[in-house]
């Protein structure tokens, strides 16, 4: 027979026989890894189906194959230029969208107006309450008549029914039908206002499309036959060349799908970070388990070797076993995920498109298996390499298992495992920055904890008088009778101080604690932040689209009702042309984006920027670099004088993403007029305060003449929030007086945002339970392994005449100290980590939920000590006679 085949058969037999003998360890490995893998697979499944759904439905979301839009209205000349460019054969349909107040007999509400033509929607469909299904082919009466289709939510808010009259911008529309299902809306949970469909033609007769109104005018196109992706890209390019106005943009359906999917993608990336925490805990546990596994097996491998099994084949046994573990793990994880997905799908309903959560593909399962397999092989590589030098000769001298030890793997042997993990981390959260931060943070913690553990063990040793940790030092001190305390205590502490193999367990315990404490802490922090903000008085209303000439009247309107108009801010559209003399626009990458950071900055660059001007900072802002604007000069200045650029203040996040720095010279284009500016400060903005704010704010003066509309708050921070009914009355009155001015109910919007956050928090919470459970399992297993590794010594000590009670006390001393120090350090580490995370991600709002922190620690202490008690009780009961004739493991 072929000798290789024979070797393989032998290996399989040996590997299997051995696995039979280590059921507990096998079980621990599988449990440990399958939790991590299950979390990973669930996310992978969600992610993939999200992408699939969004790409499939991309044309529906855009309701077009290709769309050209502008943040004003197209004029007729532009429209015909566009038709010329696109080709007469394309099917076209215009769509105007804007936020507006809609009023019934008693109520007024903010709605998202979607004005359409006959062909709408070019793709997708809309289901109406009457049973009608609206699609491209049929003509629509709303396109030409004063009729409206109102979403169910708007109907309910307005307290109206089909047939009632709806006032939009001074014109009356009959509610013709109710929208039940709307294919053309990508994300059901992110919107400011419910939708109302009307016709473009009737809309033009209202007062809503006045100068400066915040509208989006889109020309939607469908082609027959459909155009290829490349053709669409080319078309987009030529459209952008033809229309130099920065307000004009073009979107292919693919981009629309990606845009919609991206938001969910980010959300899933963040959940990915959670999965990563679980996965890394699993990795730690796995490494420690594998280490203790091999440690246990050295003697057997040495015997194999003495019988003539080559080191290479012994490594083969080990890899076969890892493969077995990975296979079983993958099966278990797939089972878990298959059970969890339908339930998850239910959970995310109304939050994700319903098609999500369909199940695992075979590709995902294979990938999961490879991840676990590759991961565990990389993880065990250092140990496996040290199998090259099995200390077989020691079999001639061996007295106890502790004498047969593998060589400590060199630090370099860890490089592949670390590299693999780093790579997996960045892939999992789809961000080099966050992934690396996470990875190096964890690595740093590992080293820090190893050092701290070593130091604290030494400290314990010095407390009982055993100052040094080297054998000769301790012996010297010991004989001089300076050791303090009973012998079992000293021996227990010496174990702690002298056994380097305890350190990985110590660190794993610590990091397990850290993760376990950190996740609830973060959640508490997140909630605290939200609560904190909603406790401060918020402005009651946010007004948009106030025209220049309306300002005195609007002010008077509120004054008469004892309310103030505050934070009145001009709103000006602009575009950045150059930064420090270098062109800065529409940078379109040739290949895909490699991370979400580069993706975000490219998208932001492509857009124009809205800006405003004022002299002073709001209370919701903080200067983080530079100086305030210089006071307005009395001497009128020429804004176009490059020697005297206008002073600019830039929001710091935006500056970071755009690569803008303090003192940069920025050339702005404000609706055709070029204006040089200089960044004199960076500021931090608390956007959730709902005060009108902008990425870029200019010094007052130079922009006074620019075309603009106004934003404002009603109420303001120093006024009590309006009661609900009064607020509604105010909005109704406002809508009647100024049909073009829209008001947003800040409270309501915030609540809706909070409920979304709550759902995310819930998902995180579930994840944290998963980590908790797997963490506890790993820790228990490690502790058990570590304690039972000392069985030989226990027997020996008993043989030397120690009483059971003393032996028990020895183990108690050793492992209670280990557990308590590890958990305490882990808990403190968690506080440090959450402080760091709060600085990085949450605007530096740091908050420790003391009660839950102490409670979690107490539970961990309790559990750890209980296990120590249990295990050391078991160990102190071992039969010392066993030592007499056979070394057993």
């Amino acid at each position, binding site marked *: 027979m072929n000798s290789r085949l024979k070797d393989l058969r032998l290996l399989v037999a040996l590997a299997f026989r051995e696995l*039979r003998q280590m059921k507990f360890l096998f079980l621990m490995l599988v449990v440990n890894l399958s939790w991590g893998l299950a979390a990973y697979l669930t996310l992978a499944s969600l992610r993939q189906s999200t992408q699939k759904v969004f790409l499939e439905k991309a044309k529906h979301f855009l309701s077009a194959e290709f769309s050209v839009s502008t943040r004003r209205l197209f004029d007729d000349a532009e429209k015909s230029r566009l038709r010329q460019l696109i080709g007469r054969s394309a099917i076209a349909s215009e769509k105007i969208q804007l936020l507006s107040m809609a009023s019934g007999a008693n109520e007024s509400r903010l709605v998202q107006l979607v004005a359409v033509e006959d062909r709408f929607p070019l793709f997708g469909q809309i289901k109406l309450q009457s049973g009608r299904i609206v699609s491209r082919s049929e003509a629509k009466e709303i396109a030409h008549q004063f009729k409206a289709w109102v979403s169910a939510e708007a109907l309910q808010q307005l307290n109206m029914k089909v047939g009632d009259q709806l006032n939009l911008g001074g014109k009356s529309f009959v509610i013709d039908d109710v929208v039940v299902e709307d294919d053309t809306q990508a994300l059901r949970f992110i919107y400011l206002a419910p939708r109302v469909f009307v016709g473009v033609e009737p809309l033009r007769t209202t007062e809503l499309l006045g100068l400066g109104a915040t509208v989006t005018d889109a020309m939607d196109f469908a082609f027959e036959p459909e155009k290829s992706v490349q053709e669409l890209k080319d078309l987009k390019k030529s459209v952008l060349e033809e229309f130099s106005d920065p307000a004009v943009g073009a979107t292919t359906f693919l981009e629309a799908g990606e845009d919609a999917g991206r938001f969910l993608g980010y959300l899933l990336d963040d959940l990915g970070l959670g999965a990563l925490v679980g996965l890394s805990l699993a990795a730690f546990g796995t490494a420690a388990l594998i280490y203790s596994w091999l440690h246990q097996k050295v003697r*057997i491998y040495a015997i194999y070797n003495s019988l003539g099994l080559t*080191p290479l084949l012994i490594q083969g046994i080990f890899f076969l076993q890892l493969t077995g573990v990975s296979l079983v793990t993958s099966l278990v994880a797939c089972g878990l995920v298959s059970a969890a997905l339908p339930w998850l799908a239910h959970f995310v309903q109304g939050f994700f498109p319903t098609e999500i959560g369909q199940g695992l593909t075979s590709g995902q399962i294979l990938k999961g298996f490879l991840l676990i397999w590759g991961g565990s092989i990389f993880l065990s590589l250092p140990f496996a390499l040290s199998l090259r030098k099995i200390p077989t000769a020691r079999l001639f001298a061996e007295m106890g298992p502790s004498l047969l030890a593998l060589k400590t793997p060199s630090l370099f042997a860890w490089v592949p495992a670390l590299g693999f993990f780093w790579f997996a981390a960045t892939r999992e959260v789809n961000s080099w920055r966050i992934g690396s931060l996470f990875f190096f943070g964890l690595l740093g913690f590992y080293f820090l904890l190893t050092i701290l553990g070593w130091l604290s063990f030494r400290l314990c040793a010095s407390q009982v008088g055993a100052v040094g940790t080297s054998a000769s030092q301790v012996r010297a001190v010991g004989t001089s009778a300076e050791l303090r305390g009973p012998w079992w205590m000293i021996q227990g502490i010496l174990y702690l101080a002298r056994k380097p193999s305890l350190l990985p367990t110590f660190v794993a315990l610590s990091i397990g604690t850290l993760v376990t404490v950190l996740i609830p802490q973060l959640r508490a922090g997140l909630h605290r932040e939200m609560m904190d903000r909603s406790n401060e008085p918020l402005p009651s209303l946010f007004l948009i689209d106030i025209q220049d000439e309306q300002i005195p009247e609007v002010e008077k309107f509120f004054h008469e009702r004892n309310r103030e108009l505050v934070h009145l801010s001009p709103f000006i559209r602009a575009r950045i042309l150059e930064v420090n003399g270098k062109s800065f626009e529409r940078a379109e990458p040739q290949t895909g984006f490699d991370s979400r950071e580069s993706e975000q900055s490219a998208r932001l660059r492509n857009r124009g920027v809205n800006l405003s001007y004022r002299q002073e900072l709001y209370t919701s802002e903080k200067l983080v670099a530079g100086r305030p604007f210089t006071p307005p000069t009395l001497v009128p200045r020429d804004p176009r004088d490059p020697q005297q650029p206008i002073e600019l203040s830039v929001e710091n996040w935006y500056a970071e993403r755009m690569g803008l720095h303090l003192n940069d010279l920025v050339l702005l284009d404000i609706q055709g007029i070029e204006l040089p500016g200089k960044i004199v400060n960076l500021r931090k903005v608390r956007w959730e305060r709902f005060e009108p704010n902008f990425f870029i704010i200019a010094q007052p003066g130079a922009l006074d003449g620019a075309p603009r509309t106004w934003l404002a708050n009603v109420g303001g921070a120093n006024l009590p929030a309006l009661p609900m009914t009064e607020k509604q009355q105010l909005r109704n009155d406002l809508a009647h007086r100024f049909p073009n001015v829209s008001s947003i109910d800040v409270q309501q919007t915030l609540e809706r945002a909070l409920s979304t956050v709550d759902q995310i928090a819930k998902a995180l919470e579930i994840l944290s339970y998963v980590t908790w459970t797997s963490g506890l399992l790993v820790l228990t297993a490690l502790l058990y392994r570590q304690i039972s590794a000392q069985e030989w010594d226990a027997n020996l000590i008993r043989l030397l005449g120690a009483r059971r009670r003393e032996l028990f006390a020895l183990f108690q001393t050793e492992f209670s100290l280990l557990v308590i120090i590890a958990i305490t350090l882990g808990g403190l580490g968690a506080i440090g980590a959450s402080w760091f995370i709060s600085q990085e991600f949450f605007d530096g709002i740091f908050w420790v939920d003391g009660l839950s922190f102490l409670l979690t620690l107490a539970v961990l202490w309790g559990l750890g000590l209980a296990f120590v008690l249990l295990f050391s009780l078991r160990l102190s009961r071992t039969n010392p006679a066993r030592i007499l004739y*056979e070394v057993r493991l």
Partner: protein
Amino acid sequence: MSLQVQGLWKTYQQAQSQIEVLRGLDLSVPTGKTAAILGQSGSGKSTLLSLLAGLDEGDRGSIEINGVLLNPLSVEEKTRFRSAHIGIVFQQFHLIPHLTALENVALSLEIQGRLPNREIDGQARDYLARVQLSGRLGHYPSQLSGGEAQRVALARALIAKPSLILADEPSGSLDLATGELVIDLLFDLIRKEGSSLVLVTHNPDVAARCDSRYVLRGGKCELSP
């Protein structure tokens, strides 16, 4: 000549000091003959055996077994050579705890990989019968007495028909009577198989049964009468 050792040196490097355990040791054991190694504790007997088994490397000198020089072989090659030509018996038995007596014995042949599985099983039973353990086939090491365990170890060392047996105090952990039984069986088996034996022992009676006796002293083997 089954075993031929010439000018073997072995030093252990400690932190500060060097321990010269073997200093130019010569030894030869003809095919089918037995040699006893005596010597004080720490004189280097086990060290010598581990070098003969190819488990460790000497600093100088040569070891030749069945006409094959061990020195130039790689670790893998030495291991294969051990599987084919050398059987080892330890003082501590070193059975595999998760294998039964039968499986422990069969393992040698499985690793050698010359015979089909069915024959391996038959031979293992046969060898366990020769060491009078037919009634203990399914016992795990933890269920065996010390003497029984050592007899299983004997069967395991001999079943692969090695030409050289290395035994390090095989009766050292056993009581007198049991030890004698084990030694009887060892000599019995060796005679039947025609293997050579290098036996480390502290017991002069056991040593007396060997064809030649050496005392390891000052890192060299001295022939003793």
